[in-house]
Structures are given as structure tokens and as C-alpha cells.
């Protein structure tokens, strides 16, 4: 029986075979879409015909079109019909349709159960294989439960092809229905132990165990001897690779295994001609922790060197990029446990960062991130910066279509796939344009590397600020909003967020590093100017860096060189920003700057000043007023508030007489007192992420208890009570005046920074700054340096630009900060509730700590403030993602579940496999779970029965007529109308009952040793010795069903 689709041609000449369809598509160039719609329409009617041949052909065509994205879920019921065909070649089409189009929520799946069970017990091996191969694609817990009894015996089928497929399918069943393993594992194990077993079957078992192995390694330790034997004797490289992977997960549990494994692995490494096996051996040694320290130090040392050297040579080999890639993969694993071994390979790894191949670059980046320290940070970041700079300059040169989007394969256009054989497009010799995702990734990593460990690896903050300014320019622009709507998966970073992250870094530096604050504020201003200039007229500024940068300008307005110019800049920006968040930030910043400009208390109120300020206010009001109708509440509120406040102030100011030569007039109080008070207060410090949680709960705090039992009375009489004036003052002091510093902690924030010996500057054998910084940033840098060095007696002029990058960092810093910067004079307040009320005296311990500052400590990076016991862990807390509390872990787990293509195997880890069966029975949790499962299963069975009922009626009533058959089934099935169920369909009921009874038996069996037959004897014996309680429950439930039925 051939299965040539066009050979089993349909009776009518008007119907198309798959062959006709494909040919037709190719002959209808230009109007494929129309042709395709016609074909789909034809298929739609053909697939509903009575003629199975026609049906199957139509289905095949639909499967073909599904490949191009034409949904065929509507045909699920027809798929089922074809699956049920007695002819193999039709059945096969049906099963293929099921594989390609069924999803777990396909309701027809319920109806397929009986068919699957029947085909599993068919006589022909090819027919048996169909449901076995299909099940992994459609499996649900309830389906697993009902199919398991028919699938299990296939493990001992005479044909090895059936056995190996069954093993894998059982594994997929176990993923959704872990109880499968309890029944299947003994049999699988038996197969594995059988030395006469077909090698393919053994290999399949090893593959499955390898998949299960990392989920529950303990269960497979007892198999180690047999697996070891297979590794040494089999001579099958495929299997050896898997075995080594498996052993890598076992050795951490059983250290003795490592000793046993080492000789054969070393042997393989030395002798095997297969690169894949060699690689996996090395990988296995790394992952299995065999490299780790142990008793036989010499041997381990030797093997470690062997492995690392092999990997190194893999990277060095020219011409095989694959080896490079996998070696980097392996290094990525080593770096977790043995960073020093990888650090030795820094040279070759850094080479890979500049590879033309993005895959290799990314892997190298992963590695590099783990290797960063004080010495190499600058050189690594410089490399990355140069890459970004080159890429962006190339983007500018090339036409504005860098994405290289090929023809969209979503269209099912069947065009010439034969004529053009050379698909190689683009310039092969040149590096491909960097995709935005990659750029974002690189920028992310640069920021992470620099900010790591609370900026612990960073020596030169001015350099970092320059890097940040440069990054804002290189950062890819955020995508349009409607574009993100079409992409449902919530990414870790939207593209737009990256510039915001850069902006946040600028802000962090400004807040944390006082010594560099003024430079930082300047940089922020420059970034804002740049954004304003670079965004073409008529377009709004979209960079996410805008709002943190604006905040910095506003908050540290006193550091601005020309506040009035900055104010003008902010006002210009406000009119060009459309997104609410930066808009609000700019509004706020503008007000802060204005209050600084206008609020000078000492300067006299001259006519000149009056008119200038009135003008300024008019300008701000003019900018704010259009925003009073802004759809975003935050923006609207700020705009309205500021506009009104300024109008009020303007009134006051215009009414205020100006001072003359003879008469001194004070500026209006509203301007000098009220307005600055809005923004002045305590200085802001960075607070650790979890600090809020550490605020201790006061003893005896009861939120339900009324604070004052006489509240109602007090409220009613509140109007008449005069508030004493001094109380108000206390309030004032508390909120608006800086308290005396309670404790000054000069936490040796970064002791490492103080280590002055390593004069790292200058001598990096790496690209000088010209290669990655823009010209203007460079010029600024140069000017700054010469300015600084002017007063330095040890600095000999400015001979040429060659010396530029060799200025010792400490000189730069020393000069910028003045020769004798007293670290302790920088007050860093500790937010400590316990001490707020206590006396000002420092504890002796702290005092002594303070008296010994490192001699060359120049920069203080304020640590995140924290409370109580977690105070020591501040640097770690800084990185929010490391926050390993349970909520975060759960969230991450949830996130993992959502990821595409991933198999959710969380259930299977909980199942106890090898352990004492009794212990499982006593475990109340397991019991509960089993009961719940049973209940669920029973429900499913009932639903299934109802649905079969419905479907039967459907088929009889509406066959070939009702176009929307499946839909009707779905709707009706949801109503559990008992009366109708009782009506007809006795066979179905019987089948459903069988479904329930069989799994129940299986459950009992797991207690008793499994005997091969499906006989009742096993079950009976199990009953006598088994656990009574759960079993009773299980029995009771089927009985209930029978009653209700």
C-alpha cells in the first residue's frame, strides 16, 4: 500500500491532491493569497465529506498549509475521524494531523482516548507506533492515566522499535503524570539490566535516564555499576556522551564515583578520535565536580590542566568556530566553580569578544562578566565600547534598514526555491551589523560589570561618566509602542529600558559618589542637551535616560555651572517630550532649578532682578499651562500645581517694591522662603532594596486598636481647639531641619579602592580612548585633565596627546578633589532608627574604625543604607536580582513555566521512586496529592463520558451536515445535564467504567511487586498487604460514579 498522496487520487477530477495543491501554488505566482483561500475553502468542505479518501487527502493538505501558519485547529474533529480510519496510510495522516495541530486544550482529545487505547493494542507494529509517537505531543494527566495500562505492556513487545519508542513515551507521560514512573520504572530498569537487550533500546533508556537524571539524581545512583559498564564496554559514542552527562549529575552525590570514573574518562580524552565525545568528557569532568579539590591532589591537578589545555586549544584552533563555541560553553561552566582556571585563559577569551560571530561573542561576554576585576575592567569595557561605536557608525553609514529582514516566511508564498541556490546574502567578509538586541545586551553587561559589587571594581569614576555619556548616544532607540503590543512575551528589558538604565547609572553615581557629583551633574546636563539636539525637529524625545537625567539636574541644581541655562534647556525639553514619566521628572526638575535661581535670599531685590524673575516665571507658566490638560494625572497635577504657585508668586513679586540705592527691599518671601522649602530638606541617600522590610515592628503595635477611644469626640471638637504654636515648631524641626549627624560611618566602603599600589592607569595594552569615545567627550576629557594638572608641580606641561591616557588615576582624582581630601568630612548618615533618639556619641567600636582610614582612600562610594542585621550584606542587596527570598524564587519559577518550548517538569521531582514504598504511603502529603489526583481523574472521566455521549449524538445527528459540529459539542458538553446522559449510550458508560477501574488497580499494584499479566491476582494480593486508607478512598470514588451514571 503506497502512500503517495496523489496516487490514491480522489474519485472526482475536481478535487486536488497535495501534489496539485503544491503545483498550483507554484503556478499562481502573484496571486497566491487568493488561490490559497480557495484551496482552504475546498479543504474545508472536502474534509467534511463522507469519503475517507477525500477526507484524508484534504487533511494532508491542511497539515501542509499549517506548516505555513494556517491554523487548522478547527479541523480537530476531522483529524480524529481520519485517525480512526481502518487503512494505515489514512490513519497515519490522521495521527500526523494530531501531532501537528492538537494542543492540550483541544477538546476532541477526550474523544481520542479510546482510539489511542485501541491502536496501542493493534497487531501491526507500524500501527502501534502511531499512537506511541503521537502521545508525547498531546499528553495530559488524565489521558496518561487512562492510556498507561495499554502502554506499559508495550515495553515487552517483541519488536525493539516498539520498545524503544514506548520507553520515551512513558517518560513524557511521567512528566505530566509522575505516577507513571512508579509503574513503569521497574520494567524500564529490567530492560536496562538485560544484557541481551537490543542496543538501540538500551541507548534509548540511557537517553531517558539522562533526562530524568538531573531532576532526581538520587534515584539513579543504584544503577551506577551498570551504567559504568555500558560506558566502558558499549563502544557507542552517542550513548557514551549521554552516560557522561548523566554521571556528571551523579558524582556530586557520590564522591566515590569520581575516583572510579577518572581513569576511563582520561583514557577516552587521550584516545578518542571523536571530538564530540572528547568534549563531553571534559565537560563531564567539569560538571561532575571531578576537578574539585580532593584527596588525590596530584591526579586532579593533572586532569584539570589536561582539560583546560584541551579547551584552550579548541579556542585557538582556527577554522572551526564550533569548537570555539563549545569550548566557551565549557569555560562558562568552569568559571562558576574554578574562576582561577578560566582567568588564566583571559587572553584567548578576550579575543573571542571581537569575533565576527555573534554566538561566540555572546558566550565570551558571559564569561568575561564573571572574570572582571579592578585590573581588567577598563580594558574589557573599552573593547566593548569600541564594538558599539563601530557598529553604530556603520549603522549610520548604511541605509536605515540594518535588521536584514528577509522575506517574511509567514506568507505561504511558494516562490522560486529552485532557481536561486545561493542564499548567502550580505557581505561575508565584514562583520554583520549588530542587532539591537545584542547592543542592548552589551550595554547591559557594561553597566553590570561596572556597577558590580557596589562599584567595587571601578577606579576611575570620571571615566565611567564619560562611558555613560557615550552609551546614551549608542543605545538603540526604543521600539514603537504598537510594536511591543504584538510581542506578547514580557522581556526582561524592553529595548527602551536600556537607555533608562544608563540614566539610572548616572543618577546612582550622582547620589552615591559625592566626590564626583559636580562632574556627574555636568554630564547629565550634557546628555540632556545632546538628546535635545539629536532628536530631529518635530519628533519627540523618547530616550528613557531622560527622566533620571532630569532628576539629577533638578536635585543637584546647586552643582550646575549655569542654572539659568539649564532651566531654559529643561523648559525646551518639556515641550518636546511626550511620554509622561520623563515629562513629570522634567517639570519637577525645572521647578527645583527655578527655586535655586530665584530663591537667593541675600541678593537684593533690584528692578533688574524683578523683571528677570517675572519673565522667567511667565515662561515657566507658559510651558506648564498646556500640560494642565495632559492625560497623565501625575503630569497634569504637577503642571497645575506649579503653574498656580508661580502665578501666585508672580503676583507677590510684581507687587513688591524694588530696592533703590537708598532703600533696601527684601525679595518676596514666597520666592525666597516658601519655594525653596518645597524642595530643600534632607539629602537623599541610596537605600538598600530590602531596607524597608527591616524596619522593626514596634512592640505592642495593634493596628486594629483605636488610637484614641474618644476619637469622635475629639474630631467634633477639633475646630475649637487652638493648636499651640510651639508644637508646630517641633513639627517644623522634625521634618525640615537636618538633625545632628547621629553617627558618621566611614564604612571602608571599598577597601580595595584604597589599595594604591597597583598603578593601573596608562599601561593597558588596549585601544586608547579615541577608538570608543566621541570626539567631543574626548576633548572635554582632555581639557579637564590639563586644567587639573596645571597646578601639579610634578606634571610636566602637556607635551602631546600621546600621554593622554597615561595620566595616573590617582593624580587625576587627587587633583580634582584637592590635595587633602578628608574622607571623614563627607558625612554619610546611617539611617538607624534605634539611634535616632539616642545620644550623638558614637560607639567606641565605630570610633576606632574611623580613626584608621586607609591612607590613600580617595573616593567614597556610599553604600546602600540598610537596617539591622542585614547591614553587612549591602553590596549584595544592591543587585536586586540576587535577592533570593522565596517570593523572588517563586516568581522566577513561574516565569520559567511560561517560557516557550520549555517542558514543565516540576511535578516529577516530587515523586519518590526508589525509596521504600511504605514511607511513601505514610507521607500525608503524597496521600493528599494522590487523592486529589484521583478526584481529578474521576472528574475527567465523567466529563469524558459526557462528552463522548455528546459527540456520539453529534455524529449521528449532524454528520456531514453541521458545519460547526465541534463548536456545538464544546458548548453542550459544559452543561452536565444528567437526564440526557441517562438516555442512551450504554457502551460508553461501560467503557468509562472500565477506565476508572483499571487505573485503580494500577495504584494498588505499586505496593506489591508487579507481575506481568494484568491479572487480578496482583491486585488482590496488594489489597491484603497494602495500605488500607487511601485504597478505600479510591475504591469508593468509582462506586460513586457508577451510582450517578
Amino acid at each position, binding site marked *: 500500500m*503506497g*502512500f503517495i*498522496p496523489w496516487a490514491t487520487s480522489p474519485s472526482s477530477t475536481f478535487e486536488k491532491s497535495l501534489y496539485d495543491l*503544491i503545483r498550483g501554488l507554484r503556478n499562481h505566482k502573484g496571486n497566491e493569497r487568493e488561490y490559497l483561500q480557495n484551496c482552504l475553502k475546498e479543504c474545508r468542505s472536502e474534509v467534511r465529506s463522507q469519503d475517507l479518501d477525500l477526507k484524508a487527502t484534504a487533511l494532508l493538505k491542511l497539515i501542509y498549509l499549517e*506548516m*505555513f501558519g494556517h*491554523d*487548522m485547529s478547527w479541523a480537530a474533529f476531522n483529524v480524529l475521524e481520519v485517525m480512526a480510519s481502518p487503512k494505515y496510510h489514512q490513519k497515519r*495522516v490522521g495521527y500526523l494531523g494530531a*501531532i501537528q495541530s492538537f*494542543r492540550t486544550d483541544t477538546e476532541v482529545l477526550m474523544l481520542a482516548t479510546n482510539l489511542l487505547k485501541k491502536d496501542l493494542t493493534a497487531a501491526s507494529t507500524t500501527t502501534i*507506533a502511531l499512537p506511541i509517537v503521537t502521545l*508525547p*505531543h498531546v499528553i495530559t494527566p488524565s489521558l496518561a492515566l487512562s492510556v498507561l495500562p495499554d502502554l506499559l505492556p508495550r515495553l515487552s513487545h517483541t519488536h525493539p522499535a516498539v520498545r524503544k*519508542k514506548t520507553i*520515551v*513515551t512513558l517518560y513524557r507521560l511521567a512528566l505530566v503524570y509522575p505516577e507513571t514512573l512508579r509503574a513503569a520504572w521497574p520494567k524500564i530498569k529490567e530492560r536496562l539490566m538485560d544484557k541481551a537487550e537490543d542496543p538501540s533500546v538500551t*541507548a534509548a533508556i540511557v*537517553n*531517558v535516564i539522562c*533526562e530524568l537524571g538531573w531532576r532526581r539524581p538520587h534515584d539513579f545512583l543504584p544503577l551506577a555499576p551498570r551504567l559504568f559498564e555500558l560506558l566502558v564496554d558499549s563502544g557507542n559514542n*552517542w550513548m557514551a556522551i549521554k552516560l557522561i*552527562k548523566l554521571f556528571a549529575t551523579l558524582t556530586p552525590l557520590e564522591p566515590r564515583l569520581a575516583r572510579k570514573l577518572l581513569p576511563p574518562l582520561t583514557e577516552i580524552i587521550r584516545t578518542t*578520535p571523536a*571530538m*564530540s565525545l572528547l*568534549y*563531553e568528557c571534559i565537560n563531564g569532568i567539569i560538571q561532575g565536580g571531578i576537578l574539585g579539590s580532593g584527596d588525590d591532589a596530584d591526579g586532579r591537578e593533572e586532569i584539570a590542566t589536561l582539560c583546560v589545555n584541551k579547551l584552550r586549544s579548541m579556542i585557538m584552533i582556527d577554522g572551526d*568556530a564550533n569548537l570555539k563555541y563549545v569550548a566557551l560553553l565549557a569555560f*562558562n561552566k568552569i568559571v562558576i566553580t574554578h574562576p582561577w582556571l578560566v582567568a588564566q585563559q583571559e587572553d584567548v577569551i578576550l579575543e573571542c569578544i571581537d569575533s*565576527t*560571530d555573534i*554566538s*561566540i561573542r555572546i558566550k565570551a561576554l558571559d564569561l568575561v562578566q564573571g572574570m572582571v576585576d579592578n585590573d581588567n575592567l577598563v580594558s574589557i569595557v573599552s573593547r566593548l565600547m569600541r564594538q558599539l561605536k563601530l557598529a553604530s557608525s556603520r549603522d549610520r553609514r548604511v541605509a536605515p534598514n540594518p535588521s*536584514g*529582514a*528577509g*522575506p517574511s*516566511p509567514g506568507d*505561504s508564498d511558494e516562490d522560486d*526555491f*529552485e*532557481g536561486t*541556490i545561493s*542564499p548567502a*546574502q550580505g557581505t*561575508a567578509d*565584514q*562583520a554583520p551589523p549588530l542587532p539591537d*538586541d545584542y547592543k542592548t545586551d552589551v550595554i547591559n553587561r557594561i553597566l553590570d560589570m561596572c556597577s558590580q559589587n557596589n562599584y567595587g571594581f571601578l577606579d576611575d569614576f570620571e571615566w565611567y561618566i564619560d562611558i555613560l555619556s557615550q552609551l546614551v548616544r549608542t543605545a538603540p532607540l526604543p521600539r514603537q509602542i504598537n510594536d511591543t503590543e504584538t*510581542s506578547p512575551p514580557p522581556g526582561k528589558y524592553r529595548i527602551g529600558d536600556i537607555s533608562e538604565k544608563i540614566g539610572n547609572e548616572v543618577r546612582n553615581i550622582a547620589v552615591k559618589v559625592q566626590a564626583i557629583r559636580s562632574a556627574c551633574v555636568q554630564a547629565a546636563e550634557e546628555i540632556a542637551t545632546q538628546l535635545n539636539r539629536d532628536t530631529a525637529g518635530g519628533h519627540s524625545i523618547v530616550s528613557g535616560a531622560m527622566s533620571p537625567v532630569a532628576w539629577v539636574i533638578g536635585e543637584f541644581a546647586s552643582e550646575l555651572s549655569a542654572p539659568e541655562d539649564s532651566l531654559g534647556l529643561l523648559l525646551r525639553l518639556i515641550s518636546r517630550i511626550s511620554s509622561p514619566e520623563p515629562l513629570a521628572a522634567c517639570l519637577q526638575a525645572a521647578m527645583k532649578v527655578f527655586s535655586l535661581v530665584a530663591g537667593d535670599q541675600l541678593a537684593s531685590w533690584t528692578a533688574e532682578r524683578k523683571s528677570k524673575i517675572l519673565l522667567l516665571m511667565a515662561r515657566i507658566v507658559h510651558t506648564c499651562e498646556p500640560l494642565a490638560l495632559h492625560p497623565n494625572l501625575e503630569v497634569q497635577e504637577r503642571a497645575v500645581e506649579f503653574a498656580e504657585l508661580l502665578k501666585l508668586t508672580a503676583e507677590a513679586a510684581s507687587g513688591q517694591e524694588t530696592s533703590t540705592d537708598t532703600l533696601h527691599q527684601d525679595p518676596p518671601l514666597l520666592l525666597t522662603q516658601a519655594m525653596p522649602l518645597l524642595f530643600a530638606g534632607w539629602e537623599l541617600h541610596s537605600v538598600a532594596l530590602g531596607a524597608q522590610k527591616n524596619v522593626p515592628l514596634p512592640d505592642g503595635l495593634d493596628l486594629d486598636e483605636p488610637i484614641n477611644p474618644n476619637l469622635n469626640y475629639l474630631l467634633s471638637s477639633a475646630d475649637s481647639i487652638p493648636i499651640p504654636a510651639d508644637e508646630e515648631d517641633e513639627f517644623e524641626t522634625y521634618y525640615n531641619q537636618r538633625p545632628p549627624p547621629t553617627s558618621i560611618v566611614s564604612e571602608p566602603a571599598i577597601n580595595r579602592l584604597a589599595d594604591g599600589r597597583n598603578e593601573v592607569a596608562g599601561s593597558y595594552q588596549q585601544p586608547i580612548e579615541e577608538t570608543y569615545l566621541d570626539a567631543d567627550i574626548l576633548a572635554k576629557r582632555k581639557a579637564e585633565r590639563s586644567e587639573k594638572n596645571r597646578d601639579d608641580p610634578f606634571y610636566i606641561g602637556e607635551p602631546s596627546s600621546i600621554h593622554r591616557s597615561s595620566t595616573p588615576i590617582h593624580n587625576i582624582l587627587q587633583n580634582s578633589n584637592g590635595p587633602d581630601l578628608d574622607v571623614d568630612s563627607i558625612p554619610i548618615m546611617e539611617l538607624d532608627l534605634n539611634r535616632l533618639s539616642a545620644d550623638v556619641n558614637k560607639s567606641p567600636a565605630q570610633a576606632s574604625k574611623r580613626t584608621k582610614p586607609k591612607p590613600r582612600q580617595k573616593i567614597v562610594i556610599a553604600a546602600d543604607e540598610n537596617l539591622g542585621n542585614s547591614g553587612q550584606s549591602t553590596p549584595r542587596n544592591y543587585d536586586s*536580582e540576587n535577592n533570593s527570598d522565596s517570593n523572588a524564587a517563586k516568581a522566577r519559577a513561574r*516565569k*520559567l513555566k511560561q*517560557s*516557550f*518550548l*520549555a*517542558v514543565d*517538569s516540576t511535578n516529577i521531582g516530587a515523586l519518590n521512586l526508589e525509596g521504600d514504598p511504605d514511607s511513601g504511603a505514610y507521607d500525608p502529603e503524597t496521600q493528599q496529592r494522590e487523592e486529589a489526583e484521583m478526584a481529578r481523574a474521576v472528574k475527567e472521566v465523567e466529563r469524558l463520558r459526557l462528552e463522548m455521549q455528546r459527540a456520539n449524538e453529534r455524529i449521528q445527528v449532524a454528520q456531514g451536515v453541521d458545519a460547526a459540529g465541534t463548536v456545538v459539542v464544546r458548548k453542550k458538553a459544559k452543561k452536565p445535564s444528567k437526564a440526557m446522559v441517562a438516555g442512551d449510550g450504554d457502551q460508553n458508560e461501560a467503557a468509562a467504567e472500565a477506565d476508572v477501574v483499571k487505573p485503580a488497580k494500577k495504584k494498588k499494584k505499586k505496593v506489591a511487586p508487579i507481575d506481568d499479566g494484568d491479572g487480578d491476582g496482583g491486585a488482590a494480593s496488594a489489597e491484603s498487604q497494602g495500605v488500607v486508607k487511601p485504597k478505600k478512598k479510591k475504591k469508593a470514588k468509582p462506586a460513586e460514579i457508577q451510582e450517578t451514571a
Partner: protein
Amino acid sequence: MINAVLVFNGQGQPRLTKFYTQLDTSIQQRLISEIFTLVSNRPSGACNFLPLPPLLAASGTSHSSSEPHNDVPSLVTYRNYATLYFIVISTSTESPLALLDLIQVYVESLDKLFENVCELDLIFNFETLHAALSEMIVGGVVIETNLDRIVSGVKAQGTVAKRPVNESRGGTLGGGLGMGGTFAWPGR
């Protein structure tokens, strides 16, 4: 495990799609086009592993390489034969180099089934393409790597059709899909 096997041609038209975990048709299509974009931008001499396409990178834990999760697809392997790209998406439990071999075995078995296979054969016989694949991989787990067993397994299901006689051999993919060339790991 293996999460998906895809075959498409130089224009990005799919010739085989097989997902071992369920995925909406529209997302399948997006994934295919994302991978195609990646694959068609590879420079010559680049390695046969792709960076994760945005769709997978976004949903997985792409940045924390220090915390690999074995359930999440983390490896996209591809090989190019004449006009076709063969792609395997897999988790970290698969060996990258072995996957390259696996693709090779698949193509070789197709070559044996069709005798000097070309893209046309695959278009008109995509059912056989599926049959051969399911002799090698079931539910995302490799069950067979032996060429002869795969071929005989497919043949046991019925005769394999030849390409239709009146169909030209199109852009002959001379020497089949041109296998065996640069990538044959010795002693596989």
C-alpha cells in the same frame, strides 16, 4: 531534550516543523521567522550555533548563564545543506556537537530514502520527512542514530514515493544536499 526540529529553505519557507512541546501556530511562525533572520545573517565560517532568538531569550533566563535551567531551551543548532537549513532547538542536556551529528544522520537517512535527495523531494513528500524524523526522535528524546535502522523503519511503513516524474529536478542540489563536506566528526 530536543524542543523542536525545523527545516526551511533559503527564503525562510518551512519544509518541516516539529515542536515537541505545544505551541500556538502563530508563535511557531514567529519563532521560525526569528530563527530565519538569525540564520540568514550568519557570516561565512561562523559556528553552527545561533544566539537565542528574542522569543526564547525573553522567556527564558538568558542573562543568568550562571544559573542554567535544564528545562529551558538554551541551544539553537543549525546546519546548512544546499538550499536548506536544518535547525534543532534543545535544552542544555543535549550535547551540542552530537546534535550536529544528529542533523547529519537525519539528512543522510533522507538521502538514502530518496536517493540523492533534493528540496523538491522534501516538498512533495513531507509526510516521509516526518516519518524519518519520528524514527529518530520521539517526544524530544533521541531513540535511534543508526542510519540503516532509521531507513528500514521508514520503509516498513510503506514504499517511499519518488518525486513526480514530470517535475523537473529544479535547482539540482548536486550531490544530494551536499552532505559529508566540511562537517563530519571523525569516528562518530
